[in-house]
């Protein structure tokens, strides 16, 4: 997935010299190919994220297409005001990359873990939020981000969980992608790292429909409504806080349908990580590991069939 990101970035930058990569002194090894292919388009802004976003706004205002790279804890969260005022208020074509979203930096603690970035970003008008779930979705998301020519936050979480799709995909902004058909009355919606987790649940015996949500904002409300109407229960799984994340977005849309579809939000509860440990350990701590997910989904299934 990270290779797909790097490849897409290099390809776009080689085709358009107006594309510039700005990094806050992050991206060790990730940008080797870029620096080799497009050294003039690589700008290390130092460990100063607020300035980096302002600089990106100035560059965009003068006709460039900056890609701003940071860890999700910093881009977008630390620089939220710069994103709001410098970039989004003028709808400038800047692509913000938040790497390591969720619990990727499991050993480093809460400063580098990012489970509130979607909630923060989605309240800013005009900022699209992309959250690809495998390398094919990453390639498509990068293409979409460059095509939009307006502010985009691309959330990059745990990236080595394997493929979900069998071949390259493409998607419209807001479009949900069906990855497993089903007719049990329950549908799983998942984004980013949790897409593979949802798929694993289904492939290990849970008979449910699975949709990938590579765009968190805007969401295709009509498509989502159609999916919700066909099912009695919608489970949303994400490596993000249940406050303000995809689960909240979906719940808001389904609530506004005044229907009978029920929603189960699975994500990070309203708390910080307590302990140090591996990524898998932290998923367990937050009940996002396969066993916990299965238990939560089964509980919801039991309620639906009551």
């Amino acid at each position, binding site marked *: 997935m990270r290779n797909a990101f790097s490849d897409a970035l290099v390809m776009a930058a080689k085709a358009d010299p107006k594309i510039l990569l700005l990094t806050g002194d992050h991206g060790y090894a990730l940008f080797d190919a870029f620096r080799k292919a497009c050294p003039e388009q690589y700008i290390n802004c130092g460990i100063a994220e*607020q*300035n980096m976003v*302002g*600089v990106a*706004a100035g560059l965009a205002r*003068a006709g460039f297409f900056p890609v701003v790279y940071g860890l999700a804890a910093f881009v977008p969260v630390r620089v939220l005001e*710069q994103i709001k*005022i410098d970039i989004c*208020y003028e709808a400038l074509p800047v692509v913000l990359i938040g790497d390591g979203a969720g619990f990727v930096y499991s050993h480093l603690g809460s400063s580098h873990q990012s489970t509130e970035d979607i909630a923060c970003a989605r309240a800013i008008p005009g900022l699209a939020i992309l959250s690809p779930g495998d390398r094919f979705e990453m390639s498509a998301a990068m293409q979409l981000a460059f095509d939009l020519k307006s502010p985009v936050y691309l959330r990059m979480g745990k990236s080595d969980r394997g493929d979900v799709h069998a071949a390259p995909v493409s998607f419209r902004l807001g479009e949900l992608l069906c990855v497993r058909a089903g007719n049990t009355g329950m549908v799983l919606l998942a984004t980013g790292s949790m897409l593979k987790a949802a798929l694993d649940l289904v492939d290990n015996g849970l008979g449910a429909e699975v949709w990938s949500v590579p765009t968190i904002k805007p969401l295709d409300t009509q498509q989502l409504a159609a999916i919700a109407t066909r099912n009695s229960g919608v489970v949303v799984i994400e490596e993000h806080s249940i406050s303000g994340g995809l689960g909240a977005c979906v719940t808001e849309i389904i609530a506004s349908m005044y229907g009978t579809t029920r929603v189960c939000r699975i994500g990070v509860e309203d708390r910080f990580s307590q302990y140090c440990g591996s990524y898998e350990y932290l998923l367990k701590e937050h009940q996002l590991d396969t066993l916990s997910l299965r238990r939560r989904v089964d509980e919801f299934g039991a309620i639906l069939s009551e």
Partner: protein
Amino acid sequence: MRRFDATELRKTILTMAYSGATVHIGCAFSIVEILAVLYRNHLRLDRDNPRAPLRDYMVLSKGHGVMAQYACLHELGYVSQEEVRDYFGDGTRLKGLADVHVPGVEATCGSLGHGLSVAAGLALAARLNKTDQRIYVLVGDGELNEGPIWEAVMFAVHFKLDNLVIVVDKNGFQAMGSTDEVMRLGNIEDKFSAFGCEAIAVDGHDEAALDEAFMSCHQHMDERPKVIVAKTVKGKGVSFMENDNAWHYTRLKVDSYNAAMTELRERIA
């Protein structure tokens, strides 16, 4: 009449402030001569196209002084007489802080510490595009409290942005008191010099001195960003407002408006 006459600009500011019953009058008055000299002699702008691609940029980072910029933009023709008279009217576009949607305003500033970074981005863009555009950014001395200012200064020095001119409006006050009382700045020229800028001090109300300072910035393309620390008087131009920090937040009443306007008119006569 002289173009961008400081007293006329102050009259426009006063008209706006009175019709909008708004604050930040002292903050606008301190930067009038700086903007007058820039708009009159240095900014290469297109009267018919505020977004002309090769224009110079004037970023008002201390966005709360925006009435002074509106007064210049009014003279330039970007802002109409109706907009001046109907300042703060419902449904109008001129806000109380610098807003990028207004023609001639290049960044949204009012939340302090934003404009210098945007200006640095514009300066880098001009460098990459190999244009001779100049980027001016006006920051307040109180605004120097903001961390991103110093991030941006380091950036501008590192990337050798000598097409960037930073003007500091050193009026010695910020919202709640003098800069010495609130957050001691020390010697501002020394601070910028220590970061690697070329910094000079000038009387911010002496138009000839300002003009010379800007000329000298253009002549020294020595890879160092330029800093002009302009010593100014908050509330400059109206005797009872000068150095009285109350005019950061005081609104004009009919008596104070008439007294101020009378004083400005007498200055012209």
